[in-house]
């Protein structure tokens, strides 16, 4: 949650792309804003929640958020929704039909591509949706443009009655720059106009609307040809002229300050005739776009010769050094070698689960079980695939753990007959898309044990609220989902639903062993909160008594980052086997006293620290 109230007066502000979009959404007189969290777009709604005079919600998934925005637009209100790239895949079913109905109040969809994959399951180019759905796409290059184009997007949306895609990337969302901001203007909704031929999309009504959609696209082509969002920057070195979009425009200007550049802001539909004229003023045209050769293909199809992905990568960001290497290739020169000291090999530092994360107990337990296949999902608990647990076998898309587990059960052959199939899913992911999968498991009697990790937070994206927390985006109280009742309602038998404390390892182990033995759907719900959220209360920390520690290393298998090895020793066991001992200490200032590591410690070397040190959690937001 953003700590401070956003500024509401017109001002020069230092804003991230996300903050700039939120500012413009508020200024545009937007009445309804909805989103499901997802890196790198999450902060947009968090910031919007701080502005007055608009309704802002966390929705349970992106499809619902887009439908909420559409409903508001039908009332004639300005509406907005934001999502990460993969979110638009989820929302696309709604998108593909709302492009046929068109919109009423301005409707803007901000979609943030995680170019460079800082925190995502894939890298994809959301600009394709603009082509697929025949809707305009705007591509800002920095915070100022993110602000200005959000305002422009509402205007476009209302003039052409179309949803508009604002395509952001990580390098827009999370970069701060100066923004000249204005004031909010109020926009009164025009009211819902009953019009079944427009809003009731059955074949008879939808068919006559298709030509309208294509007519709109033709008009948008003219708009794009005249739009000030598409402009040429003059340059005296005409050997290469660039066509650039998004943050890549800044990188081109940085690397080749003397080259002419055609900047595309309204990049779909592209202003092809203007590009043709531009191409004639330069020796060679190079298209610089992240990530797919989308414009390149369109420009080539228009008969304009250009280069692009034959020189530049289709994966990751096109930073200035990447561009320089690509252009050197075009010129047949050696790639520039900047004078740098040699990069040094240092151990990797993958993200870890937090100290005392309730998921630690789950993965410790799963890592001790044999003969299981673990169908995983997306969230902090995906880290269970890593060390020391190695206890997650798949991760595909939100909610996929359910269907994948069911398919594993139904598809298994004799070699897997004895395997236990376990699905692991977080509370937010479960409500996003997992619930339907569980319904399918229950309905089709899958032999699957579901671990539903209810930590009362969307931990992965920073601890946002969800229907399981009983609070909404603005922190107001709302009804709290009863997961056990919900699972029963979809058809899992009451006896097969257990709620367990993930810090009680023997209880968890017993529950898992019993439920995986029974050949019917079962759900084990864990009920301890994420340590990053307000209502997590640390208790008395632990320490290791040096003389008692035998160096067995059992506690290290819990995976808590507060446990550190102090020294290693090699020793030969009575059996003749050589083992390495690892003696440990606990970072008492970080330990929150969850008690997990105490349980596998046979010599009882881990005891409460005396005197009680004030615990300062290592990773609080």
């Amino acid at each position, binding site marked *: 949650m953003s700590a401070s109230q956003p500024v509401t007066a017109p001002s020069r502000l230092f804003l991230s792309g996300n903050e700039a979009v939120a500012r413009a959404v508020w200024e545009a007189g937007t009445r309804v804003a909805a989103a499901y969290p997802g890196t790198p777009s999450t902060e947009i709604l968090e910031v919007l929640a701080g502005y007055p005079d608009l309704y802002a919600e966390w929705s349970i998934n992106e499809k619902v958020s887009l439908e909420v925005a559409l409903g508001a637009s039908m009332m004639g209100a300005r509406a907005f929704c934001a999502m990460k790239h993969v979110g638009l895949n989820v929302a696309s079913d709604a998108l593909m039909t709302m492009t046929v109905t068109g919109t009423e109040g301005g409707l803007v969809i901000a979609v943030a591509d995680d170019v460079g994959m800082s925190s995502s399951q894939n890298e994809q180019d959301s600009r394709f949706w603009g082509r697929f759905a025949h809707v305009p796409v705007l591509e800002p290059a920095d915070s100022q443009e993110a602000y200005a184009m959000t305002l422009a997007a509402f205007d476009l949306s209302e003039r052409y009655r179309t949803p508009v895609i604002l395509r952001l990337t990580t390098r827009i969302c999370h970069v701060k*720059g100066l923004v000249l901001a204005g004031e909010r203007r109020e926009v009164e909704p025009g009211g819902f106009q009953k019009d079944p031929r427009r809003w009731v999309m059955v074949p008879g009504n939808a068919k006559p609307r298709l030509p309208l959609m294509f007519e709109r696209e033709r008009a948008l082509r003219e708009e794009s040809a005249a739009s000030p969002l598409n402009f040429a920057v003059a340059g005296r070195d005409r050997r290469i002229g660039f066509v650039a979009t998004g943050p890549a425009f800044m990188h081109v*200007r940085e690397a080749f300050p003397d080259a002419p550049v055609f900047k595309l802001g309204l990049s779909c539909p592209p202003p092809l005739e203007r590009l043709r004229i531009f191409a004639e003023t330069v020796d060679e045209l190079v298209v610089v776009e992240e990530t797919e050769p989308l414009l390149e293909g369109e420009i080539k199809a228009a008969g304009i010769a250009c280069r692009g992905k034959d020189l530049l990568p289709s994966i990751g960001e096109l930073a200035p050094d990447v561009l320089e290497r690509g252009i050197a290739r075009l010129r047949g020169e050696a790639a520039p070698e900047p004078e740098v000291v040699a990069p*040094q090999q240092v151990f990797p*530092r993958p*993200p870890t689960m937090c100290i005392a994360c309730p998921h630690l107990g789950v993965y410790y337990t799963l890592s001790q079980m044999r003969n299981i296949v673990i169908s995983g999902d997306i969230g902090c608990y995906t880290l269970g695939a890593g060390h020391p647990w190695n206890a997650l076998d798949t991760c595909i898309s939100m909610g996929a753990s359910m269907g994948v587990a069911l398919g594993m059960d139904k598809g298994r052959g004799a070699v897997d007959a004895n395997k236990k199939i376990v699905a692991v899913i977080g509370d937010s992911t479960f409500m996003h898309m997992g619930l339907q999968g569980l319904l399918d498991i229950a309905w089709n009697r899958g032999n699957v044990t579901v671990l539903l990790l209810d930590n009362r937070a969307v931990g992965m994206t920073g601890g946002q609220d969800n229907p399981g927390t009983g609070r909404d985006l603005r922190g107001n109280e709302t009804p709290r989902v009863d997961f056990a009742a919900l699972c029963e309602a979809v058809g899992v038998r009451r006896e097969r639903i257990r709620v367990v404390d993930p810090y009680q390892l023997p209880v968890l182990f017993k529950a898992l062993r019993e439920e995986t033995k029974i050949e019917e759907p079962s759900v084990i719900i864990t009920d301890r909160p994420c340590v990053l959220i307000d209502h997590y209360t640390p208790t008395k920390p632990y320490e290791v008594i040096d003389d008692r520690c035998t160096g067995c290393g059992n506690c290290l298998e819990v995976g808590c980052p507060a446990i550190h090895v102090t020294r290693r020793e090699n020793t030969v066991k009575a059996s003749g086997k050589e083992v*390495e001992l690892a003696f440990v200490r606990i970072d008492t200032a970080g330990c929150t006293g969850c008690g997990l590591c105490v349980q596998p410690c046979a010599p009882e070397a881990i005891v409460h620290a005396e005197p009680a040190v004030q615990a300062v959690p290592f990773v609080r937001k």
Partner: protein
Amino acid sequence: MPEISKTTNILVCGVGGQGVMTATEILAEAALSLGFDVKKTEVAGMSQRGGVVTSHLRFGAQVRSPQILPGEADLLVGFEAAEALRWGHMLRPGAAALVNSGRIVPPVVNVGLFDYPDDPVAQMRTLGLAVYAFDASSLAQQLGNIRLGNTVMLGASADRLPFPAEVLRDAVLARFSARKPHLAEINREAFEAGRQAVAAAALAA
């Protein structure tokens, strides 16, 4: 106002949870207060969970790309010793690194999969970098809270910026007076402690 024709590149690196982003934000506020154009960008995949964090700060008359490229940082502020080593190649050859010699050992090292470098600071020096190192973590703990570490590191960088140290100190204090006034005084102390510690390290070096 200082000369602004050239862009200044500062790279701040560390581990999730250390306050790297907040520190860079304060550096940005200082540069903004002098009228510079400023861009700041982060690479912090899932950073709250102890991963690698880098924050790039560029300021000058006009800044286009927000990214600092290898070999182009004018100053490296390393909040953790091995992280400073990891990002050493981002510095211009011969440029200075201010390094917290305190260590944060990740689980992959604890379980024995990887080794922590023996002496990251010495290794950086063999690369020809000017390294000023001191234990900012212990210093912060002595001042009462490990979380003062980022203010200590800001103090350490204060005399190596293209503007007076007071501008940065005022930015630190402004932030605390606005949000947590009871912490302003201790942060002033932390800032000065970092400044002195790095001066002592420079004398020793």
